[in-house]
């Protein structure tokens, strides 16, 4: 492998991933506001461009041209680092996401591990942002975000381990290629583990919590903490948090669709490709938005109780049952 094409390849993927993250955020902003509008008996963005599709563009222009304020008492380095870090981590994860049979930036063996490694650092970015703002609301919010993320990573990773046991691979492309058609999807109990529908549910709930989405949006609980960890961020600092949040929502839903719903595979086994991946992921994203505009927010204790007292035991049961099932084909 010569060096030169490799650099071109990297460049192409960097540009591609960044463009996708930007477009994805724009699309999700529009989708979220439109869906929210229709859930709430109103129209949502309509005047800016046809069907309001230019709304995210206007928001972006506005945010970019807005003054960046670094509070005098804030830790300038941490304050500036945090949004960049959030964004970088979210973008990095896209490197191993397979969008199609050959449409993946880096087809590495430990893709799954890499994603969770980076997603775990994400919470640190929020924390230094909240801490660096030197704002009490932001600090409380940052502490909430950390305890929440730690609590929900445990059941999530246990589920992922279960899935790795079933698929015996950490390569996302391999996992997808095992699920050739609807009947082979890992969400169904006859493929691998009898408890996999439950596993999917737990994984999805954990995704909501990990990405700070309602009903687990304690970090940015408006009625309690004003705007949470990004209270002090203006302009594009806030914009980057937004991009990062939408990118991780996408990643979370993409992972769910890769692990359980066959990723880029077609349900009927014909014409697999990137469109299936996008359809499945955005359907899941739609559910995330739907949940957000339906439920009130939990409290921190309700959230931690749900994780440690319900999700962790259940996911451990899933792990054990799956292990037993894999080792002893009978009586399953």
């Amino acid at each position, binding site marked *: 492998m010569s060096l030169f094409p490799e650099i071109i390849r990297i460049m192409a993927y960097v540009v591609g991933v960044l463009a996708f993250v930007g477009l994805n955020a724009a699309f999700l902003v529009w989708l979220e506001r439109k869906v929210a509008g229709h859930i709430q008996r109103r129209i949502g963005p309509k005047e800016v461009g046809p069907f309001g599709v230019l709304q995210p563009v206007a928001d972006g222009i506005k945010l970019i041209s807005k003054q960046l304020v670094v509070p005098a008492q804030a830790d300038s380095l941490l304050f500036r680092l945090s949004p960049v870090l959030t964004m970088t981590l979210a973008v990095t994860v896209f490197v191993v996401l397979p969008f199609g049979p050959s449409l993946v930036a880096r087809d590495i063996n430990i893709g799954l591990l890499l994603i969770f490694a980076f997603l775990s650092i994400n919470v640190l970015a929020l924390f230094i942002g909240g801490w660096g703002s030197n704002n009490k609301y932001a600090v409380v919010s940052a502490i909430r975000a950390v305890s929440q993320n730690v609590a929900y990573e445990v059941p999530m990773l246990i589920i992922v381990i279960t899935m790795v046991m079933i698929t015996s691979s950490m390569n996302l492309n391999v996992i997808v290629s095992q699920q050739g058609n609807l009947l082979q999807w890992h969400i169904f109990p006859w493929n691998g583990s009898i408890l996999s529908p439950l596993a999917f549910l737990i994984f999805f709930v954990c995704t909501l919590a990990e990405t700070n989405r309602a009903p687990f949006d304690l970090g940015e609980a408006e009625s309690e903490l*004003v705007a949470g960890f990004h209270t002090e961020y203006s302009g594009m600092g806030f914009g980057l948090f937004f991009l990062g949040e939408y990118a991780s929502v996408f990643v979370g839903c993409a992972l769910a669709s890769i692990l359980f719903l066959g990723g880029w595979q077609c349900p009927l086994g014909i014409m697999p490709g990137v469109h299936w991946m996008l359809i499945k992921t955005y359907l899941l994203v739609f559910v995330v938005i739907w949940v957000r505009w339906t439920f009130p927010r939990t409290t921190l204790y309700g959230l931690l109780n749900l994780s440690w007292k319900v999700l962790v035991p259940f996911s451990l049961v899933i792990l054990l049952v799956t292990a037993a099932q894999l080792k002893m084909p009978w009586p399953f």
Partner: protein
Amino acid sequence: MSDLAVDPSCETFVLNMGPQHPATHGALRIKLVLDGEYIVEAEPVLGYIHRMHEKMGENRSYLAFMPNTGRLDYLSALSYNHGYVSVVERAAGIAIPERAEYLRVITVELNRISSHLLWLGAFVLDLGGFTPLLYTMDDREQLLDLLESVTGSRLTYCYFRFGGLYNDVDDNFGPGARAFIKRMRRRLPMYHKLISKNVIFRQRLEGIAPVSAEMCRKYGATGPVARGSGIAYDVRKHEPYSVYPEFNFDIPVYEQGDSMARYLIRMDEIEQSLRIVEQGLDKLPPGPIMAVKVPKIIKPPKGDYYMAVEAARGSFGIRLVSDGSATPYRLKLRSPCLSNLSLFGEAARGLLLPDAVAFFGSLDLVIPDIDR
């Protein structure tokens, strides 16, 4: 929980909620001493929207003060109108025609529903659910259209006059109100399904911030807050005024005293108000809407007079001290919200921050009414 909060070895910090904060519904500041997220001490700081209503009462004529009453508790402005016209009518000895009394009751109850609807939306918004606000506001808009056709304004009504009303209702009012009652009766089960039965919602309200009946008495809390604590006190039944004795309605009472009870009280009150409006429309007598002999300039005899009415948030009282001239000598406005808020400091001790926000929302406060 509370022993954790008073542990002297814990490090605490002070958090200023407000004056601009989404949870305080206006310009109110709450000084919180927090231990982690537990509240050690909560002290509301008032006065950010003090608008000198009582001073204004002393330097303008009785009629000219009328619009002020619509701006005290702007969510149930008609109740305040009612209280004010009633105390002046009591002082000056003005009797008002029956049709006017009935229309007063009907419009006041419609206003109470609109107030409770707005509260419901804002309350769920405090708990992080955005969508119910849009639903309740949608219903409220229907109601506002109705009230606007009668009173001429959407929010800060000034509809009653000494001796009667500003104008009669038109032919569309009756059918419109009946249509609204029908609509609301359909919508209430929907709200119960969407909100009351939601697991997260119940988990956040049940058993949170119990207020005892004794505490209500010591602080003078009235309205849904007292009724949520098992006190069956409603001025409409307790000290009947206007034509309320003619109506058949219940006073919902819950014993638990927690945020859930205060929520359920208001939901039940919407139903009761619908009943009152329906009966009022059935019984509405024909006739004049203004008493014939109302002096142009009201000069009540010397002395002091008190009048309490049941506003949406509790008992609103007016003490009018008259020196026999055309302006009140002293006009004291007893705000239900002030008394209801005064127990916040004691009841919020030991709560978690989000629970305190829920508790605050369940008190249903209108800040300009507190500050006056």
